[in-house]
């Protein structure tokens, strides 16, 4: 079987003419025995890096140590091989050597290097390293360049594999797929295999057609996760390499302005941290002071009554105390993979953006409330008195008469109605005293909104609504207890008439002989319960409607609070400004393929009949497929793409 290899090639290496030999650094990722993924991170010129040959091992080790953990497990950052600038027809650079000699020699790495070093002085130092590194590695890559004019994408030079040392086998004829990618940079773009908001072990909840599941059962031909992770970490690797490189050469003068800015940022962070610490100490003191009375029922009752407010205040305090961590601005550089760095940054930004929006809204609403305090106060008291008089009291009186044409039992309706009216009367008498404090309450709400954002006073409003309608919820609770008792009794008595009894152990009805006395008492009680049922049910329906209306309004405010908390503001804004930062999947654009038999670029379909039937290896057609790696960008409301993409290598056959 022909071996297959894919070379993931950074774009900037293709746009300029390669002038001299370059060392290639990157990762080898191999999944199957006959296919190999070569991720090229960057290339370093042999001239300029001559004095780092001595410390190359340490540099590679330090770069590897900075990589993502899963990348370290799958593949080590290493020296991939070298690329030689060559003539356009791809001739071998070595003098006096026959190509078949090279192919036939299989004595390993050192032999090859010896061949190559014929007349090449530059490679002396490399020889040492090759020997040092040949013990622990399986692959070595030799590339040449080939021109390929695709002006639309500024790709001028395509690497061409000269040969690969593949587990101590020299392979010079293999199917090559060159994939050109634009190196991901933080803040610009990156690649991702998953949908933009799925977790690491994301699973989609949409229903997939059957062929997708069958496709998933096939063994994947390549380890795309590692490859994409390696691509995303290429920039970080290059930075660390250059840092070591620059460290060796000379110290570059960091501009003074940068140092001054860094110093000011640190100062700001420290001041914010101390302010927040003071704030935090104050909060803890008040909390422990409140805890002193925590045994009393007053504290527990008020804690339960104001639960919404308490939760929102806690959220707000946690968010405020998070500020210093944000301003510290560490960890950003140390995330090697651009994908991980973007995720972490988005997480941080979303925290402070929701806080900011909340406080802005709170300021708006608070200022409005402060300016229109009297009208708001009068509107609230008018609404409360309207609700009590028009709805509750009139409703009760209506029920005591002939509501909706139902003829109720006068006595029972009278009793229930009088109880409700008395309760409402007592409650409204109590709240007359509170009504004078309403203006201060609204002022307090406005100040809370200005200081803490809109969610905290909204939660306080919810709790105050619940407290103010306590009489309604109590009445509803009482009438529902009465109604359910009546229904249960009726059901039990009906079972008595049928001579049956409920068996709770077996959850079924058993036949049972009641005594005569039980029958008599049962029938004496059944008739009034049955005939009083319409009255009770009508009162129950009325109070349920009232209570549900109040609950719905509270729920509406809660939904608003949740929406303010949960909307991803920063993601929406970034999506509108820079959509490239939200990739969701990759796709390959095939821009050409080449056969060695005919030098002109042909169409993407390779004639299958051209596969060799004889056993002469040097007459096989070598095929190179060139494609460009693109990213799918997420649309809002789009269905997620499939998580695994299967590159079928059959097209290279």
């Amino acid at each position, binding site marked *: 079987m022909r071996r297959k290899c894919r070379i993931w090639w950074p774009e900037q290496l293709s746009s300029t003419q390669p002038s001299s030999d370059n060392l290639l650094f990157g990762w080898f990722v191999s999944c199957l025995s006959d296919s190999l993924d070569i991720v090229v991170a960057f290339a370093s010129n042999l001239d300029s890096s001559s004095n780092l040959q001595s410390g190359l091992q340490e540099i590679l080790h330090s770069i590897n140590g900075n990589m993502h953990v899963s990348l370290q497990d799958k593949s080590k950052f290493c020296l991939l091989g070298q690329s030689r600038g060559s003539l356009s027809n791809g001739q071998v650079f070595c003098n006096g050597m026959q190509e078949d000699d090279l192919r036939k020699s299989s004595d390993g790495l050192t032999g090859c290097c010896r061949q190559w070093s014929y007349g090449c002085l530059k490679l002396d130092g490399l020889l040492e390293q090759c020997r040092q590194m040949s013990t622990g590695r399986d692959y070595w890559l030799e590339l040449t360049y080939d021109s390929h004019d695709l002006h639309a994408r500024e790709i001028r030079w395509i690497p061409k594999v000269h040969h690969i040392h593949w587990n101590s086998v020299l392979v010079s004829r293999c199917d090559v797929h060159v994939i050109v990618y634009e190196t991901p940079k933080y803040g610009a773009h990156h690649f991702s295999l998953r949908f933009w908001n799925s977790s690491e072990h994301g699973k989609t909840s949409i229903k997939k057609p059957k062929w997708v599941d069958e496709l998933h059962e096939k063994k994947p031909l390549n380890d795309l996760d590692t490859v994409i992770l390696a691509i995303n970490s290429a920039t970080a690797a290059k930075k660390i390499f250059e840092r070591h490189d620059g460290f060796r050469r000379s110290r570059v003068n960091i501009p003074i302005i940068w140092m001054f800015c860094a110093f000011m940022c640190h100062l700001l962070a420290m001041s914010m941290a101390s302010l927040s610490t003071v704030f935090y100490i104050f909060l803890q003191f008040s909390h422990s002071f409140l805890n002193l009375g925590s045994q009393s029922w007053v504290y527990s009752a008020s804690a339960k009554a104001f639960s919404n407010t308490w939760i929102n205040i806690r959220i707000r305090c946690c968010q405020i105390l998070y500020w210093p961590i944000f301003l510290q601005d560490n960890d950003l550089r140390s995330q090697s993979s651009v994908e991980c760095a973007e995720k972490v940054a988005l997480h941080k930004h979303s925290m402070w953006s929701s806080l900011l929006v909340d406080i802005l809204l709170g300021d708006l609403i608070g200022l409005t409330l402060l300016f229109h305090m009297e009208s708001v106060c009068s509107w609230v008291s008018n609404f409360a008195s309207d609700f009590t008089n028009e709805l509750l009291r009139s409703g009760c009186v209506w029920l005591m008469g002939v509501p909706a044409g139902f*003829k*109720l039992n*006068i*006595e029972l309706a009278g009793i229930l109605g009088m109880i409700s009216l008395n309760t409402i009367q007592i409650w409204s008498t109590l709240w007359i005293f509170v009504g004078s404090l309403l203006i201060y309450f609204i002022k307090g709400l406005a100040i809370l909104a200005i200081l803490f954002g809109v969610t905290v006073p909204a939660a306080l409003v919810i709790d105050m609504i619940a407290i103010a309608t306590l009489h309604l919820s109590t009445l509803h609770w009482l009438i529902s207890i009465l109604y359910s008792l009546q229904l249960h009794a009726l059901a039990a008595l009906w079972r008595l008439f049928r001579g049956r009894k409920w068996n709770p152990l077996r959850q079924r009805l058993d036949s049972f002989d009641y005594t*005569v006395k039980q029958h*008599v008492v049962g*029938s*004496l009680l*059944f008739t009034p319960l049955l*005939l009083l049922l319409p009255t009770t049910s009508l009162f129950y329906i009325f109070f349920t409607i009232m209570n549900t209306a109040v609950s719905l309004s509270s729920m509406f405010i809660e939904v608003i609070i949740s929406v303010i908390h949960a909307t991803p503001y920063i993601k929406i804004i970034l999506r509108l400004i820079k959509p490239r930062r939200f990739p969701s999947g990759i796709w390959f654009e095939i821009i050409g393929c080449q056969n060695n038999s005919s030098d002109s670029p042909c169409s993407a379909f390779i004639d299958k009949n051209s596969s060799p039937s004889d056993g002469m290896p040097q007459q096989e057609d070598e095929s190179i497929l060139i494609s460009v790696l693109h990213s799918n960008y997420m649309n809002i409301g789009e269905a997620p793409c499939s998580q695994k993409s299967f590159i079928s290598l059959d097209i290279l056959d």
Partner: protein
Amino acid sequence: MDTSISGDSSPTRPKWRKVAYGGMQPGFDDNHTDETFLEDMVMNANVVKRNLLKVMQDSVSISQYLCIVALVVLVWTYTLRSTLNENSLLLLDVSLLGLGFLTLLLTEEMLSLDLLLHYVLNVSFFTTGLFVLAPIYQTLTQSISSDSIWAVTISLLLLHLFLHDYSGSTIRAPGALKNPNLTSCISLNASIVASVFIASRLPSRVHVFAIMLFSLQVFLFAPLVTYCIRKYSFRLHLLFSFGLMAATLALVYSLHLLLFVLLVGMLVFVNVLCPYWLIRIQEYKFEINGPWDEAKLCFDITD
């Protein structure tokens, strides 16, 4: 087939035995029967031989109960028309109670003090309960029209008469043999609910209490009293029944002619026609019993 061949069969063929085991017997069919077939059959073993007089005497208890129910309806009607006021009703209740106790004392052989106490306790329990429930019953059906009330009451009374246990009484002395079965309990319930409906039509609390007490007394205790009378002496029973029927007929005649005619027709139907009909169709009764019947387990073992 086999037997028609000849009398002397081959000496090796065994005799056919009527057993349930052993499988097929050689030489005989699966459905072979011999001359002892059906000799154990008993015909009309449990059929009671009746004669007309006896049946007519027994049907007197049904018509007696019918008259009792008719009297109750009569009292209801007079109360609803305000012919009877509450005081006379209360008097009626108390007298009925006294009469019933007297009858029980006189006719019950094994009457003991704690049995009497038990009865007194139950009666006082019911009286107190009714007194408490009377205000609730008074306004229970004010929103329902009168026609619906009459219709419901009559249908419940019919149900009560249909399901009533005429042979014994639902309420028995403690220590009685049989428990009341479900249909007699349902009939009792129906009668109580009917009386509640009627009681809810009355104007005042005392009315309601009195009529409920009356109805409950009659429906609960009248079968017991008549059962005791019947057990004591049959002649007394017959005398009592005829007297009751005469009184009922007289009272219904003074109320309404149509109802009188209806009642007379019912009594004649129950007392004369039904026994004659029963005797007539008794001839056609044909029961077969034999050793093939399922075994009936006997639960009525008293120690």
